[in-house]
């Protein structure tokens, strides 16, 4: 009996041996012993390339263009352009939070590189330092442009320290940014054979962009010039081809973030920019204002050029116009695109079908009759999604930044005109020297050349997330964004316009284009032949984003931007 008791008891104890409690993550690393070798540092640096960190650029397709006079979306206004944003606005909070995530991660890398001194060469460590510095500089540049003064954090900070931290003067932060860019410029290579990571050229280009944002034109001039002098970059021969989603490499691309449906399983929805005949919703279009900004082939704006044809407005225009907009009567996504026709040709069946892209037939057809061509390929129709990359910096932008800096510094010279002409010549697919084959810029008056430059930026960089930044830094939002969104009249009015020969542009009225390149349709509106769909409003407080409400509520040292 006693044996049985002993047996039972010992069995019970064997069964119930103590459970180990020191458990560590199984499928993740521990940051306490990270950053010790090249692989670990590279993995950490890789994180800074993720699109979620580059929120201000990659958050949504055509991100800030949606808030500009280049965009129409029926009667819908994004909250920024409706004037209804507050500190609760998700873009303000997410841009802030995600950009600071990038900064925290870059800080940790920069502060941890000495862990790897034993295992990694000094040269390699310096390159890592350059790479992390590049990202930190970029992220801070977005913050000071969007929010003004922001907290400056460059190392580990405890919660208590953070709660005691306020906003730092953006001039101080700008110095830190330049310092970081200079570190990046010093240590980064000009190119890579394998994976394309950030380069010396990118550091110059972003330094130039930051300087233009901060209206520091000498720095912008020098950085842009240094980028040009590297000789690494050149313009892609074909403007349209550069924006095909399949184009991932080009000597023009300085920094972009790839997207891939294959590798991530998701893309960005584009139904709203696909024609209704092709199965899209045609909700969003490039605006008439943008359409009118493309000069005629003589280099003159449409309100001055004798070449402008009101009946056929695509005629004699800068080629980038037809690269951006689908020209009426041309094939697009399997159909002839013509918003003035009741039936159109279905190219695959060869039959005429009812035209769902005409307001005459469908009250939800494109309100302004326009349709996007740039960026669009057949994949858009197949998947109603795109995975085109986010082109954040390209060489044309660097050339135009250089020209702009020179103009603003009133140092207009051959190199200034040449930078603009390179961009313009490429649009006409000719060499910059073939001055008879494209409208060469020869203007040397500062004010007039400024007008040309600003318009050139607008049309060259249309829907590339640059227009909004330009409107803000040039302080033009208060003019451009208080005008209504215009559109074609609804069915009955449109039919009458067509009958009287006033379709698209009324015979006896032209939009007026001012010295800033801003287009005013009020003369057309007065004819009663177009309609104003929705009024935009812009309050000057919106030259800065609001600081996220949460940040202001929990931290007494942080005050909201004025007016919010």
């Amino acid at each position, binding site marked *: 009996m006693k044996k049985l008791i002993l047996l039972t008891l010992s069995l019970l104890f064997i069964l119930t041996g103590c459970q180990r409690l020191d458990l560590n993550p199984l499928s993740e*690393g*521990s940051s306490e012993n990270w950053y010790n070798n090249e692989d670990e540092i590279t993995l950490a640096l*890789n994180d800074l390339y993720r699109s979620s960190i580059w929120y201000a650029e990659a958050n949504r397709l055509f991100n800030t263009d949606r808030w500009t006079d280049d965009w129409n979306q029926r009667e819908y206004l994004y909250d920024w352009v409706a004037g209804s944003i507050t500190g609760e606005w998700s873009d303000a909070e997410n841009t802030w939070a995600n950009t600071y*995530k990038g900064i925290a991660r870059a800080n940790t890398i920069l502060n941890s590189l000495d862990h790897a001194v034993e295992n990694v060469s000094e040269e390699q460590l310096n390159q890592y330092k350059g790479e992390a510095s590049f990202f930190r500089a970029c992220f801070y540049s977005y913050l000071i442009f969007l929010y003004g003064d922001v907290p400056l954090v460059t190392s580990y900070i405890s919660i208590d320290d953070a709660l005691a931290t306020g906003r730092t003067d953006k001039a101080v932060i700008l110095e830190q940014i330049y310092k970081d860019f200079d570190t990046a410029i010093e240590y980064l290579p000009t190119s890579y054979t394998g994976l394309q990571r950030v380069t010396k050229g990118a550091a110059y280009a972003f330094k130039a962009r930051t300087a233009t944002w901060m209206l520091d034109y000498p720095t912008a001039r020098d950085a842009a010039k240094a980028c040009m002098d590297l000789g690494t970059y050149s313009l892609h021969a074909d403007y349209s081809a550069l924006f095909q989603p399949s184009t991932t490499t080009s000597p023009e691309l300085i920094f972009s973030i790839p997207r891939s449906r294959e590798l991530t399983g998701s893309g960005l929805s584009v139904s709203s920019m696909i024609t209704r005949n092709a199965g899209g919703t045609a909700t969003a279009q490039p605006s008439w204002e943008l359409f009118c900004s493309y000069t005629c082939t003589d280099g003159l704006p449409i309100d001055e050029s004798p070449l402008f044809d009101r009946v056929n407005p695509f005629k004699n225009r800068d080629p980038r116009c037809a690269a951006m907009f689908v020209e009426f009567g041309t094939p697009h996504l399997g159909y002839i695109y013509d918003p003035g026709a009741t039936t159109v040709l279905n190219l695959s069946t060869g039959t005429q079908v009812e035209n769902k892209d005409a307001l005459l037939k469908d009250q939800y057809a494109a309100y302004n009759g326009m349709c996007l061509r740039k960026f669009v390929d057949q994949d858009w129709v197949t998947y109603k999604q795109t995975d085109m990359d986010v082109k954040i910096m390209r060489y044309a932008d660097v050339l135009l930044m250089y020209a702009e800096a020179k103009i603003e510094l009133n140092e207009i010279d051959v190199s200034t005109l040449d930078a603009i002409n390179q961009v313009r010549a490429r649009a006409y697919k000719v060499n910059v020297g073939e001055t008879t084959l494209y409208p060469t810029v020869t203007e040397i008056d500062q004010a007039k050349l400024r007008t040309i430059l600003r318009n050139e930026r607008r049309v060259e960089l249309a829907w590339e997330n640059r227009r909004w930044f330009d409107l803000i830094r040039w302080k033009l939002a208060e003019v451009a964004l208080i005008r209504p969104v215009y559109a074609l009249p609804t069915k009955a009015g449109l039919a009458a316009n067509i009958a009287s020969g006033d379709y698209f542009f009324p015979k006896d009225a032209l939009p007026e284009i001012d010295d800033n390149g801003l287009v005013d349709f009020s003369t057309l509106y007065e004819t009663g032949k177009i309609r104003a769909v929705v*009024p935009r409003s812009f309050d000057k407080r919106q030259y800065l984003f609001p600081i996220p409400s949460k940040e202001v509520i929990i931290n007494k040292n942080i005050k909201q931007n004025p007016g919010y």
Partner: protein
Amino acid sequence: MKKQVSKLLGILSMLLIYGALFAQTGYRQISGKVTDEEGRPVVGVSVRLKQTDVATMANDSGSYTIRIPDITPQVLVFTYMGMKTQEVTVRSKDVLNVTMEAEITSLEEVVAIGYGTARKKDLTGSVALIDGEDLAKRNNTQLSQALQGFAPGVTVTRSSGLPGASGTIRIRGITTIGDSSPLVLVDGIPVENMDRVNPNDVENISILKDAASASIYGSRASAGVILITTKNAKSNQLNLEYQGTYGVVTPTQFPGTVDYKRYMEMINEVAWNDGGNQSGAEYSIYDKDFIADYAENNRMDPERYPITNWVKELINDYAPTVSHGLSMTHGNDFVKTKASLNYEKTDALYNNRSYEKVNGRLNNEFKITKFLSGEVAGSFFHSLGENTVVNPLSSAYKYGPLWRPYWSDGRISDGRNGTNSWARVNYGGFDNTWGDEVTGRVGLKFKPIESLTISGVIAPSVRVSKGKTFVKQIPYYNAPDATRTSGYVGGNLTTSLAESRGEVRTMTKQLTANYTPKIGADHNLSLMAGYEDYYMFHESLGASSDNFLVSDYPYLDRGLSDYALNSGNAVENAYNSYFGRVAYDYAGRYLIQANIRYDGSSRFHQDYRWASFPSVSVGWVASEESFVKNLNLQSLDFFKIRASWGTLGNERIGDYPYQAIMNFSNGLFVDGDGNIVSQTTAAQQSFNIRDITWETTESWNIGVDATLLSNRLSFTADYYKKTTHDMLLTLQIPLFMGYNDPDQNAGIMSTKGWEAQIGWSDWIGDLKYSVSANVSDYRSVMGNLSGTVFLGNQIITEGVEYNSWYGYRSDGLFQSQEDVDQSPLLSSVVRAGDVKYKDISGPDGVPDGIISPEYDRVPLAGSQPRYLYGGNINLSYKGFDAFLMFQGVGKQSSRLEEDMVYQTAGWYNFPDFVDGNYYSAYNTVEQNAQARYPRLSQLAYDGNNYKMSDYWLFDGSYFRLKNVTLGYTLPGKWSNYLKMSNIRIYASVNDLFSLDHYPKGWDPEAGLTAYMARTWNFGAQIRF
């Protein structure tokens, strides 16, 4: 379904034939001995053949002999005063020994209290008890939902009546921001989900509410503990029971929408308002003529001019539900066995969604020697949730009437530009989930001496889950006459498959010793000490593929390999615990109990890992005092006052909260050849707090239990106070730190609450009845937190209730543009007809003339339900029985969600109750002054009106009749004729109606994409 019914009928008729074949005339003699639980003979027990007058009585040695007709089965009924009446089925053997059990009043009931049992009357903590029979009567196969309204202080909230939906259980409210679900144990072993237990298998449920009762479970008990005891066989039991129900589910209500004409007019009004109300622009989307001619056009050409009722297209009028259960029970002096199997299937009120589950349970107890007994038990659970790739419920009340789901010849239409939930539900593939769980339990109980029991249990469980989402490409035709597909329905553009697998393994080991020394007649002492550990491992994997060339083979290798994606993840956690209990009472009059538990958790750094959770409770049974007895209060049968104090812990905050983790992701790069490649990235995403440790809840409880008037009236009431220290909160840290908010030991929350239950049971002639009702309330207020938790429309901050509504204070609707111009505004889109907010403060602490989210939002009201009540009525008269149950919330601030009152996007329809009740430029001044809803405007919708404010808070209280059941037990001669010992048939309805203040069509409990179903059940219980 038909198949199942005919199968069942087949089985039944087989049984009938079987019975008839063996029917013989003639008599047989049955004899045996009747003993009590200690094996002593019971003298004078009445032995009677059921439903007859044939009877005898046991003699002095407990023996009896009875002559009965020789037909099977026959049932003998053993009756004796003070003992439980027993019905024993006579089988082939002629010897039938019976053990009688002492009958217990409800106070004598033995209840589970955690590593042991206690008599209800000896309890000193606050424990709610639910009888398995009451649960079974409710015919709710989800145990969590079945608990609703039964016990005071136990809140069950539902948000869905969809098949397989669970209820959320809170014991005495919220305890922590993390996981406030109570710890659930089935036969002493923690389980993940109580819905995997079949309610018919439940013997009883003890709910440990206060710290004194729950602290034996220490670290994981802060949100309360639910102990589920499953049924086992008793001695002398041998039976087979079948239970089957068939039912239909019908919706309680659905939101209504305006008609096609008002839809177009209201859409026009939105555009007109947002365009600045220019004259002549009133019909900017739908021309006046178009609207006027629409009905006629619809008559002539319904393809092109449809008027679609989407609710009718998407929602079915009813759905079937069916369940079958079979259990077998056998018990003798050495082995007690119960096996049960239950099957259930419920369809949703829309196509291609259903939930199916199978529960199996086997409980075995073996008495091996006088010293040693053992148990082997196991359960099996299988579920299959068949689902569609989209939940169409919100589409049903949102889609506008001017679009068609399909053309008249059956081809799928584009809906609206390819948005078509009807096509997705019916042709879009599936999103199915499978779950399987096996739990086992082996225990040994060793009793070396009478007063000492040592037991060891090991209980492993394995849970596997499988998910398969197959999205099929759906081509559509966008004109009735087109022969060519013109696109693919949104969400179903390509054919893709995503599969997931998960595996969870747990192991619980327990070793306990109970010692009950005899130390004198009036002194009762019991001691318990134990050790327990637990380990959990969870691993998951996911794989997906896209762009399938064929749509009929839901297997990963059919997709394009370029689009194949994989994922994987694993975590583990563990704890070790030591615990003990001392219970002492003097003559059943003075009771005292003390518990302690010492816990270590893998979730914390080793320096902060261990904590102890003590508790003590006392009770005084006043009715046992001689001076009370001498008062001769005839009506007072039992009166006890209880008081308790204790602490509980909580650690459920993720698996490695103290560790700085490098989270891996993927980033995309272009390689040297221009190809896009994916690279692993690593970053610490969450801030880590190294010294994070246990959250502790200290609680005080006082209560009384009383029974009066010959045990007919019972009453229980409790008052409690809980304080949570070092509360684990995800406080907002400055966003600019660049990390996700970490959990922190942040602050203090105080909860005060009370609960009461009253019951009455009696009979009048053959009518037996009982009535019970309960009510409870609590209020949790946040103490000193070192920060704030923002939860969108709610907030957790010092001085206000947990999860308070947080937003602007409103001041009606702006009635004029002058008023708008003179008032502080949130944004420039505000016009007359929009919600007006009060300027409460500004950056300098005084109103600043701007409405801003930083300075003008305040806590508005608590969001938690108050004054929860429930009750039930039981009636029986001869063979008839009836059961009725109700439940409700006495007070609650609820929010009118945007989706209830205004649809957000241009083509979504408007709720019918809003029409005629909103501010409009077409209204008179008087009409506008009375308007409940703001003007129709997309800009103001986003920019002002539907921001959280008290304008949208309303009285969310409700009363609901949850269940009505009517049953009838067939007279014995009928069941005898059918060769069965007992047949009960019943009909019941769940969720018959509710009284509430919700807008028309909205259920007080259903979420925005769910419904509450009314379930009509018809069923039978047959015992052989």
